[in-house]
C-alpha cells in the first residue's frame, strides 16, 4: 500500500513528456498487456542473483496489476527465459523475446555478459536494463540511448566506500580484487582512486580468481601488513572463505566490503563480521519505511524473509519501468526510453530512484547507498550511514 501511494505522489517529472506522434497500438489501452522480456540466468553462475530478483519483480508486478495495471489500465506480464550466463545465447533469447512481443527487455546481472543481448534490443528500438549489472560504462555501449542500469554502478560504490573509510580515519588500505569480472575490478579501482584523493594510501593489492577456495596467502599478507583497513571486492561464497581465513589468522584490521554480500549467507562468515562494514542500498529499514513494507509483502507472499538485497532491486526495476510507461502514456520503445530517462524520485523498495539528470551518466539511476554493519546474533544488517559519494571517478 504504502509504496504505491508514495510512488503516485512522487512520480511527477516524467509526466510532462511525451508528445510523440503515437500509433494507436502504442497507447495505453485498457485490457492490453505490457510485456517485460527477461533474458535471465536460471541455471548458471548468475542465477544466484537473478533468482531473488525475480521474486522482487513478481511482488511489484502483482502489486501494480492488483491496481489494474500501469495507469490502472495496462497489466504487466513477465516473460523470463534462461540464457545460462552465455552471451551468445543471451542475444538469441533477446531476439526470441522481441519476436514474442516483448515491450521492454531486461538482461542478466552482468553488463558485460548481457551486452550482446542489450545491443540486440537497441537494434529493435526497445529499452533494455541489466537486472543488477553495475558497470557504469554499460549504458554507453548500447546504441541509441536504450541502455539502462538498475543500480548506481561500481564507480559510485567504490567512492562511497572510500569516503566512508576516510571518515573512519583509515589511512592505509589493502585491497583484494579480481580480474575475472568487471565488477570485482572496477569497483576496487574506483575505491583506490577516491581513497588516494582523500589522502589515503594503498599499501597492498591482492588478486583472486572467482571461485577460489583458499585466501590464506592473501590473508597472511594482509594480516602482517601495516594496513589499517582491508577492502575486498569478493562476494559469497568467496567472501565467507576469505573472512574465515582472516579470522583464523587472528586478524583485527577492519574490513569493508561491497553490495554483493547483502545476502543472509554472509552471516556464515563468522567473527570477522564484527569488525566489518558493507555498502548496500535501502538505508531506511526502520518500521514504516519502504524497505520494511516491501519485506512485509515479501513475507506474506513467500512465507520467508527475502533471500537478499536483490529481491528489493527486482522491485525497484519494475516500479521504475512502470513509472516510465505511465509517464510516456505509451508502450512504444523510444517513448518509454525517454520517459525512463526522466524518471525522478520514484519510490522503490530501496528508497528514491532518479534517472533524471543522473550525476553518474545517462541511464544510470541515482539511489542512496547505505553503509551497514553486521548484527550476528540476529542475523541483521545495521545501517550506520546513508548517502551518496560527493565525488567519484569518471566513467571510462
Amino acid at each position, binding site marked *: 500500500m504504502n509504496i504505491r501511494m508514495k510512488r503516485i505522489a512522487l512520480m511527477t517529472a516524467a509526466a510532462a513528456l511525451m508528445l510523440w506522434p503515437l500509433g494507436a497500438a502504442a497507447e495505453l489501452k485498457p485490457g492490453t498487456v505490457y510485456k517485460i522480456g527477461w533474458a535471465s540466468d536460471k*541455471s548458471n*553462475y548468475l*542465477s*544466484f542473483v537473478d*533468482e*531473488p530478483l525475480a521474486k522482487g519483480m513478481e511482488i511489484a508486478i502483482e502489486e501494480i496489476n492488483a491496481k489494474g495495471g500501469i495507469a490502472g489500465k495496462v497489466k504487466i506480464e513477465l516473460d523470463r527465459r534462461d540464457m545460462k550466463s552465455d552471451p551468445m545465447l543471451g542475444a538469441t533469447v533477446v531476439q526470441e523475446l522481441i519476436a514474442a512481443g516483448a515491450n521492454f527487455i531486461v538482461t542478466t546481472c552482468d553488463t558485460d555478459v548481457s551486452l550482446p543481448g542489450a545491443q540486440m534490443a537497441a537494434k529493435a528500438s526497445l529499452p533494455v536494463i541489466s537486472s543488477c549489472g553495475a558497470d557504469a560504462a554499460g549504458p554507453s555501449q548500447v546504441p541509441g540511448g536504450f541502455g539502462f542500469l538498475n543500480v548506481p554502478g561500481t564507480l559510485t560504490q567504490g567512492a562511497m566506500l572510500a569516503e566512508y573509510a576516510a571518515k573512519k580515519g583509515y589511512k592505509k588500505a589493502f585491497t583484494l580484487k579480481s*580480474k575475472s569480472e568487471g565488477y570485482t575490478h572496477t569497483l576496487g579501482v574506483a575505491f583506490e582512486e577516491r581513497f588516494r584523493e582523500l589522502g589515503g594510501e594503498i599499501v*597492498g*593489492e*591482492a*588478486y583472486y*580468481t572467482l*571461485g*577460489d*577456495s*583458499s585466501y*590464506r*596467502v*592473501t590473508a*597472511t*599478507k594482509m594480516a*602482517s601488513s601495516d594496513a589499517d583497513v582491508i577492502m575486498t571486492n569478493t562476494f*559469497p*561464497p568467496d567472501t*565467507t*572463505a576469505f573472512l*574465515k*581465513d582472516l*579470522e*583464523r*589468522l*587472528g586478524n583485527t584490521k577492519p574490513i569493508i566490503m561491497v553490495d554483493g554480500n547483502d*545476502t543472509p*549467507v554472509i*552471516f*556464515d*562468515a*563468522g*567473527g570477522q563480521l564484527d569488525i566489518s562494514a558493507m555498502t548496500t542500498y535501502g538505508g531506511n529499514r526502520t518500521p514504516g519505511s519502504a524497505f520494511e513494507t516491501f519485506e512485509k509483502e515479501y513475507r506474506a507472499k513467500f512465507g520467508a524473509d527475502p*533471500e*537478499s538485497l536483490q529481491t528489493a532491486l527486482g522491485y525497484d526495476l519494475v516500479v521504475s519501468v512502470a513509472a516510465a510507461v505511465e509517464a510516456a502514456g505509451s508502450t512504444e520503445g523510444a517513448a518509454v526510453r525517454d520517459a525512463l530517462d526522466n524518471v525522478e524520485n520514484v519510490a522503490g523498495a530501496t528508497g528514491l530512484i532518479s534517472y533524471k539528470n543522473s550525476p553518474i551518466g545517462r541511464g544510470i539511476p541515482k539511489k542512496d547507498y547505505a553503509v551497514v554493519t553486521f548484527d550476528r546474533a540476529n542475523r541483521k544488517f545495521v545501517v550506520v550511514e546513508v548517502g551518496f559519494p560527493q565525488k567519484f571517478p569518471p566513467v571510462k
Partner: protein
Amino acid sequence: MELMLQQFINAVSLGSIYALVALGVAIVFSILRLANFAHGELMTVAGYTLYATLLAGVHWFLAALAAIAASVIAALLLERLAYRRLRSANPLTLLITSFAVSVALQSLFLLFFGARPKGIELPAFVDAGFRIGQLRVQWLDVFIIVITGLIVLSLHLFLKKTVIGLALRSAADDFRTTRLMGIKANAVVVGAFMLSGALAGIAALFYFATVPNVVPSSGFEPMLKGFIACVIGGLGSLPAAVVGGFLLAFLEVGSDAILSNSLSPYLDAIVFGIAIILLRWRPGGLFGVRMTEDLRV
C-alpha cells in the same frame, strides 16, 4: 621469518587437501584409465550432506560420517550407472562421459538446492588455534595434516598387506591379467570407487571446513586442482598423486607469496605455465612410470 613459516603451514595444509583429492582421482585412474571429472561432485555431495545434517541439528561427528557415507554411495552409483558399461572404452570417451556426469550432477544440485550458497554451520573448534611466538597455528591445520598423513599411511598398508589391496595393486598394473588370475573385475572396480568416494568425502570435510559454503559448482575447483596434481605427479601412481598435491600447493602458495602486485593477477597462468614446462620435461609426470598412454618421443 614468521611470515614464511606461516605461508609454509598454509602450503602444507592446502597440499594435504589437494593430495587427498588427487589420491581419489588416481585410484580410479590407475585401474580404469578413467580421469573422473565427476570426482568433484562427490565432494559436493558430501558438502550438501554436511549442510543438511548440521542444519537438522545432527552432531558434527555423525554429520561428518554421513557426509563420507554419502560420497561413497554416490561413487558406487556412478560406477554402476555410468561407468560400468564403458570399461573397455577409450580414455577420451571415459573422460567426456565423466565430464557429462559432472555437469548432470551440478544441474541436479541446482535443481534441489538452488544456486544460492548454502552455509555450513561449523562447530566452533574448527576456528580455534594457538600461538607459537608470532606464529599462529590453527587446530584445523594440525588436524588436516595429521589425518592426511594417517590416511596416506593406512592406504599404503592396506594396499600392501591385504588381499583386496593386492588385487587393487595388481589390477592397476595389468587389469586384464589380474582378471585372468581369478580376481573378480567388479570387486576390484567397486573397491576402487569406494576408496575414491571415501577419499572425496574426507577431502570434502576439510575443504568445507575452510570454505563454509556449498554451491552446485563447489567441487569443480578442488577437482581441477587434484587432477593437475595427479598429472604433474604422474597419473596412475598413488605416491605420485600425493607428491603432486603438495607440489602444486607449494607452487601456488609460493608464487602467490612472492609475486609482485603487477604479476599476481597472472597467478593462474604462471602456475599452469610451470606445470606445462614440467610436463614437457617429463611427459609422464614427475614420477610417471606408466607410459603406455603417452608417447615418448
